[in-house]
């Protein structure tokens, strides 16, 4: 349980509720922060099966809840609800454990941006727990709750590029295990580490030190993803010379986001392998 999504959030809070200690009742109590607001216009099905699918990460967060969660009026209602309902529903003897478990999850989740982590940490340290829980709730609603079967990271047939940061095979294994597959643009955040499969293009250029480098680019959901690699860290010069002649090839890349703007994202590539 190292990824903070709605399912994990519900499970953590469920462990701290005084009365609503079944998963279904805990989920309902939490989601009512939005669904009970008339202006949210939520008509989604929250049957036992649906709730169970959300908790087991078989279903995404219902779309009308996600849409409503971006409305400032609804957000204000969520803050109020957490102060008046959720905080009071927590067993006072267990509440601190709940806050800390969430805090640990936030720290360990590489998909959460540093800015967001810092914001949540500030609320945690200031002991503004109602606001802290509400902010995390609003945040997880925007994250992909459904576990994609493809999110089990696969190994490439052949590793084509390995960043010099990766010292040994153990470090490579680690990135295979820990990097998350990008499923939608909204999932991407600065400092997040992801794995992405797609069509990549390769272009040479000479860097500031006069060394020939290879710029690796792809487009994901209209966003240009671009990063520079050192020629010497590729499997061979012949390989690079031959891939630069084609427009693009299918690859799988493990990357960290360095900068993100509206239409472009600068990344550091940890590894690039043959497409699957």
């Amino acid at each position, binding site marked *: 349980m190292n990824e903070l999504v709605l399912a994990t959030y519900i499970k953590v809070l469920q462990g701290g509720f005084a009365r609503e200690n079944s998963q279904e009742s805990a989920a309902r109590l939490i989601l009512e922060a939005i669904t009970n607001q008339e202006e949210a216009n939520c008509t989604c099905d929250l049957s036992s099966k649906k709730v169970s699918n959300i908790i087991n990460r078989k279903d995404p967060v219902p779309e009308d809840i996600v849409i409503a969660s971006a409305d400032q009026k609804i957000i204000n209602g969520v803050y109020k609800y957490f102060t008046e309902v959720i905080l009071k529903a927590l067993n006072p003897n267990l509440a601190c454990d709940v806050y800390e478990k969430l805090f640990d999850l936030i720290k360990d989740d590489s998909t959460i941006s540093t800015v967001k982590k810092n914001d949540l940490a500030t609320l945690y340290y200031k002991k503004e727990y109602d606001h802290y829980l509400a902010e995390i709730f609003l945040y997880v609603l925007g994250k992909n709750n459904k576990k994609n079967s493809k999110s089990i990271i696969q190994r490439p047939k052949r590793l084509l590029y390995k960043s010099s940061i990766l010292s040994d095979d153990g470090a490579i294994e680690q990135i295979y295990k820990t990097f998350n597959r990008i499923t939608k643009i909204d999932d991407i955040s600065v400092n997040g580490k992801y794995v992405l499969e797609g069509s990549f293009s390769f*272009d040479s250029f000479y860097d500031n030190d006069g060394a*020939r480098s290879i710029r690796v680019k792809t487009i994901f959901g209209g966003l240009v993803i671009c990063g520079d690699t050192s020629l010497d860290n590729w499997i061979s010069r012949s390989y690079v*010379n031959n891939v630069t*002649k084609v427009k693009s090839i299918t690859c799988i890349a493990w990357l960290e986001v360095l900068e993100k703007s509206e239409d472009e994202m600068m990344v550091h590539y940890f590894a690039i392998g043959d497409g699957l």
Partner: protein
Amino acid sequence: MKKPNKNMEAFLLGVFAGELLISKGCIQPDFQVENVGIRNGIPVLMDYADIIGVELPAALTRDVIRIIKESIFSLVDNYEGSFEAQSYVRAGFLARSGMLGHMVYEDARDNGYSSFLFVEKSLRNTAHSLGRITKWEDVKPLIGEWIEIPLDLLNVQSDLELKQEKEKKIIHPLNGYYLQNTVHIMSLLDHGILGDEKKCAQIYADICISALRYGMPYMAYGYAQKCLTMASTNEILSIGELVINETHDATREYKDYVDKFIELEDFQFMWILEDFDISI
């Protein structure tokens, strides 16, 4: 066949890359020395597997220029860190490929590869290529015309200069300039190797006049200065002085840089001057 020295090998490979491109429409993406053999003193391809064929000039696109540039990068990789050898590759390639070769080197310059990599890092980011020709419909007929010019640089002919004089009269002025450039490169190679100072001074005078005519003030200034440094005839010296007086378009600041590089080997110097002319 005696193994050619490193610079001559680099030059021959540059000519060979140009020859493959211009006469056969072939691009070798992986131009490592191991993939090229020498038969009777002439390079031959050892590895055909990955050769790309393009129909020139019809199929010429920005992407084709990019692929040729990548091929040239793989070629200069053989001489990593050596400005001198890489300047020989460039001279050979441009001598055979004319305008197309210059377009490839402009694209390379836009990707950080220029003479400034080796001599003056502070100049590297001054400017990008000015892109003298932007319309493909203008470029393609000129490249088509160049392809038709019978040039056999791998079997250097002593009467090359005369033949080109005849050609110049019937081709587009821009191709005329590139052809003259080819003649200058081949002459410098011949006479430079022989150490014939007098002949070199004549070539320098010819380069600076031709550069002035084609709007390349730094090339004109640089080679005019070279004329003045040679123990030469009064005629050559006065050509040098005359040309220097006409290079108003070149700024003093960059002329000072040019003065710093005057002692460099010809193909290095030529590369620097062209980078000034194209990008400043």
